[in-house]
């Protein structure tokens, strides 16, 4: 699944480490989600959405 995490992070001038600390996950997790290697669970996706103040569907994009 594609996502806009990298763009949203860049808009706020956050590093991967900054975002990882805000989400209370490892930097490797942020990297894996950003690069589309790993799709987060629903609770983590909601945490990401809450952090950016956006609905989930504005961050994660369906492939079809």
């Amino acid at each position, binding site marked *: 699944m594609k996502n806009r995490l990298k763009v949203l992070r860049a808009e706020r001038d956050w590093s991967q480490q900054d975002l990882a600390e805000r989400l209370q996950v*490892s930097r*490797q*997790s942020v990297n894996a989600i950003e690069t589309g*290697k790993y799709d987060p669970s629903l609770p983590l996706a909601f945490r990401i959405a809450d952090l950016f103040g956006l609905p989930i569907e504005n961050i994660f994009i369906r492939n079809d």
Partner: protein
Amino acid sequence: MSQKAAKIETSFAGRHPWLWATAFAAALCAIAYCEHRGVLGGWRSLPFVAAAALLLIPLTKATNNRQAAAGALSPATRRYNRRMLIWSVGYVLCLGTAMTVHNYLDPQGALLWGISVLPSVPMVYFVWTLARYVIEEEDEYLRHRQTSAALIGLALVLLVGTLWGFLETFGVAPHVPAWWVVPVWAIGLGLGQTIMASAERRADRP
């Protein structure tokens, strides 16, 4: 932290865990060779085995440092590494003790049963450590990564074990003791982690 201690810490951080793992494996091979040549053996080997086991400490430290540099060292991972170190040292010492008693005291009956079971006792702690990691890890990606690597290790054990078993059944391969499942699983675990790290690097390329 003193300058000297900081320098030691940095020197550990600069070395790849594989270096320490290779040094540990080389030390065990050297001890086995010396035993084969009759230079070492029995009680005389134990201090050397214990000294070789000390290499597991810098191995764990280097692993911690490498995982921290990669942004993958969670508190649960740190505990897992520490517990695996305790297990590794315990396993080496229990195995060394059992082999020494077996070779020198010619045990019979209950003592023979006792030393036969002794090397397997740390495996209870090993399995507990794996279970605790899955329970304690709060970072879902790291948990996914570790369980995937463990499944790759299991796949290797099943494939190699079944293949070798039939080779033995049909008389084309020599017998291999069943305790080899742990080293084979550990090789599969390392292989799995290497495959996933490689996939991460590929995905990270622009």
